[in-house]
């Protein structure tokens, strides 16, 4: 199967007059390739979270059709059919550690698989495997999740999602509030899972992560999809980026600074290594 996710003219209107109305989607059509690492960017309130909540059927479209892993959801789909649908789609919410609740780390991670009918024994195997993936030392398995540090709690919460072996993993600002080491750990985990075939959908404000990790970018604004392209293409027009209240990756923004003083770039560098290569080439050659 080629596409993991397809949206056909999807709109979502929250109840009229509610303060959330600005977050709605209007007439979004898109497809996300299976096995891709897709970043969803846009200003606060642009509809990023509403968009991804349709992918794991937390929200149903009020018009149009969402197709995920071959199954369709329309405004008429009954809520009863959504649970089996969600099984293969993992969702890591913002500040997922707020959802930890069990007595021990292991029990917390086992909850998901058990909820989907795995035996106690299997659930434990899946949970341990997931905790290994997030590099949580086994010494912590029987501790209360609330005795762990913030970064460790975050990783336990993510393990709870991974224990369900999702084919699609949606992460909504998974590194907000983490220190730099925690940030690198979570992003490298996403990269590793992606290499193993998991489709990653990352909602983020951090443009360096977009160019360092993603191969596809969706740009949202006021509930509309205003651009869908590779990261290089999205950031290649700095004026467009700034006009839409987005930031450039650090490397691109530094290169523009040099360009404004007369430095020539054949192509706007997107990563720090590309930038260093261009500068070294420019000042060493000739």
């Amino acid at each position: 199967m080629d596409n993991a996710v397809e949206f056909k003219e999807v709109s979502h209107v929250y109840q009229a007059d509610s303060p959330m109305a600005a977050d709605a989607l209007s007439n979004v059509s898109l497809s996300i390739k299976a096995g891709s690492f897709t970043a969803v960017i846009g200003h606060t309130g642009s509809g990023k979270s509403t968009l991804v909540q349709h992918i794991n059927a937390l929200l149903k479209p009020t018009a149009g059709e969402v197709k995920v892993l071959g199954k369709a959801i329309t405004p008429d789909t009954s809520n009863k059919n959504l649970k089996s649908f969600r099984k293969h789609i993992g969702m890591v919410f913002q500040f997922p550690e707020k959802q930890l609740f069990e007595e021990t780390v292991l029990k917390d991670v086992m909850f998901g698989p058990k909820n989907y009918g795995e035996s106690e024994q299997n659930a434990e195997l899946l949970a341990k495997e997931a905790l290994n993936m997030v590099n949580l030392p086994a010494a912590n398995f029987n501790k209360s999740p609330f005795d762990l540090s913030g970064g460790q709690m975050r990783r336990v919460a993510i393990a709870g999602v991974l224990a369900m072996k999702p084919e699609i993993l949606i992460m909504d600002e998974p590194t907000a509030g983490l220190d730099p080491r925690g940030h690198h750990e979570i992003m490298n985990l996403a990269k590793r899972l992606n290499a193993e075939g998991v489709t990653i959908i990352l909602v983020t404000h951090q443009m360096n992560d977009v160019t360092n990790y993603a191969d596809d970018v969706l740009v949202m604004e006021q509930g509309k999809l205003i651009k869908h392209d590779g990261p290089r293409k999205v950031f290649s027009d700095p004026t467009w980026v700034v006009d839409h209240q987005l930031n450039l990756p650090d490397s691109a923004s530094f290169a523009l600074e040099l360009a404004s003083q007369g430095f020539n770039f054949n192509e706007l560098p997107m990563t720090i290594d590309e930038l260093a290569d261009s500068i070294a080439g420019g000042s060493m050659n000739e």
Partner: protein
Amino acid sequence: MDNIIRVDNLTFEYPEQEQLFKKLSLSIERGSWTAIIGQNGSGKSTLARLIDGLLEAESGTITVDGKVVNEDNLDFVRESIGMVFQNPEDQFVGATVEDDVAFGLENRQVSRPSMIETVQKRLKDVGMWDYRESVPANLSGGQKQRVAIAGILAVNPKILILDEATSMLDPKGRQDVLKLVAELKEKNNLTVISITHDIDEAALASRVLVLNRGKLLVDDIPSNVFNDEEKLVELGLDAPFTTRLANRLSERNVSMPDKYSNKEELVQWIMQLNSKR
């Protein structure tokens, strides 16, 4: 030197955990901007809570503006210090923006006319006067933090502690809040302590303290701290973008200055090299 905060031989541990601070001593100069950086769990926020008297030290003394932090002086200490926390949702009490800013004044039994005047002044200071009748829940993260800062300033603290106050904000919200703090610091002669793991936020300070597992590992000016990428990474932190770029250029045999450069300085350096090639 006029130190507004002094910490002497501070010892503290949480129940059933390893000792965090063991005879920690440091002082903060009046009117300065100090960044405290360190990984999650390094003791940054705990130190702030000890200084504000939210936690009690096991031994050692903390002095705030000349008075020892203890039960008798708690009101004085809390009046002196305004704290902005990470999650703006956690610190709202008022039904509207102006109610929220007035809350601290109501607690201090300020007269109504003077309350109205202060609320107006402080909301204008943070650029949120137009939102005075809004419900806090409908604001963006950056706007919420600005309202929280207005509420804190309304009671005229001498010290402003930002406890990861920008870590939940989007890039624009973060820039807005930091710019505001810098302006307010100058206008009100505040002492600012920013607890952060954002290296760009730390770059605004005149002094950087690095905490690691309760120990003060580094106490230096930002340019010295930021120039050592290896050490920062070892401590679980990141070096600023310019330091990382300079190191990658050195690896490619481009000659680089041997001290930390900010963005403008590094741009100038590269342009000069380029003109000489």
